[in-house]
């Protein structure tokens, strides 16, 4: 069984959104389920800080041995940081998807969009289906 922490928000495309201490800033990564399905992550292509994305725009790609997947921005906003550690060690996405395997930090321009995302229970149902 893959891990689906309560308190995070999810997309149907298997990204998660985690609140941070800074208002309107969120950490985005892919779920434990997604990394399990992808297998070994070979590298992650991420945008640059300052880039802006609309909701569900492609903001990067994740290359795994089995397949390549687009990464979709769960929220409209601006990238304020990327996880530089993934350049050196993309396997962090496999080993710690919700922690050290985070991908981007995004400043949401419309924080109400968060309400349109899936809860942990909704997402669990989604991946089970």
């Amino acid at each position, binding site marked *: 069984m893959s891990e689906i922490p309560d308190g995070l928000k999810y997309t149907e495309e298997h990204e998660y959104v985690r609140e941070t201490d800074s208002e309107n800033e969120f950490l985005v990564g892919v779920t434990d389920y997604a990394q399990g399905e992808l*297998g*070994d992550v*070979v*590298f992650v292509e991420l945008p640059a800080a300052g880039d802006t994305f609309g909701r569900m725009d492609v903001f990067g*790609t994740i*290359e795994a*041995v*089995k397949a*390549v997947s687009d990464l979709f921005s769960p929220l409209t906003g601006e990238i304020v940081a990327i996880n530089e550690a993934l350049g050196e060690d993309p*396997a962090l996405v*496999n080993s710690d998807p919700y922690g050290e395997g985070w991908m981007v930090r995004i400043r949401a321009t419309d924080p109400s969009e968060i309400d349109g995302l899936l809860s942990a229970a909704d997402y669990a149902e989604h991946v089970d289906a």
Partner: protein
Amino acid sequence: MSDLKRTPLYSEHVALGAKLVPFAGYEMPVQYPSGIRAEHLAVRDSAGLFDVSHMGEFLVTGPDALAFVSYATTNDPARLSEGQAQYSVFCHENGGVVDDLIVYRLGDQRFRLVVNAANLAKDWAHLEGLASRFDVQLKDESDEIGLIALQGPRAQEILAPLSSEPLDPIGFYEFAVGTVGGVPGVISRTGYTGEDGFELYVPSDRTSALWRELLAAGAPAGLVPAGLGARDSLRLEMGYALYGNDLDDQTSPIEAGLSWLVKLDKGEFVGREALQRQKDSGVTRRLRGFRLAERGFPRPGYEVVLDGEVVGPVRSGTVSPSLDAGIGTAYLPPEVGFGDEIAIRIRGRELSATVERMPFYPDGSVRK
């Protein structure tokens, strides 16, 4: 996956937590929980255990066994003594490859042909069509034989205590008949990884027992079960051809860089005229290896670009765990040489690559 066949090791894979995928009509382990990269590196550093029981085995016997195998394959089985094996291909008359295989000389009038599972039915029909002119019997033993590959620099050390036969005298592409852990079979120093290692042909109903015994015996040396994912990246680092990717009915062994398998002076064989022509007047394409100069994953089917023109698809491709670089193969015009630049189109972007001599990974422990 109800139509898929299972190897004798299916329940072992399930118990080990393998991820099973359909492959060549079988439900096969693509990886175990430690992942493809870890399995790959374990084989390079220590040893890995592979289930390759899906491979097909044909037994050829009879007074014309040697003549038949020589007629059906491009390599020269007359060069084999009992206890020796050779890599070879079956060709069509036009020189296209029906399949690649290993020929084992089990006896004077007795050969085992080990073929790809995906081609088993095609190979069988092809051979039956040729056999009528020869005094031979063909037998498909694929369901009776299980096949385990033990590969890695520590393979011999792991196998030796279980083997009835001394292993050191068995050279590369040689074999002995004996027992391993009490299970009778063929102990062959062959493999598909570039590391030293053995392939063990044993009765189907004893394969599971041997698999467990080997895993237990090898664990202290770092032996791990390894799946098809690692098998593919290991073989590609060595530039070993994979049928369906690098070889198919339309590619010839000359084009594929397998000229050394084509013995034009041995007498009549299927495809000889076409291959002679290709050797005399040259080929219009050659299978070459390339390495990406930048980070990327060159997947099979991606377009290969030479001087602004698409010249064909990537045939095999991966990110090499040993080299940490994207590597692959493609058919390129023969004038393209080592060190030349090409590009691989990856989702709209052209990534530069250099044509490189294979193997990409020359440091394996395989005996030469």
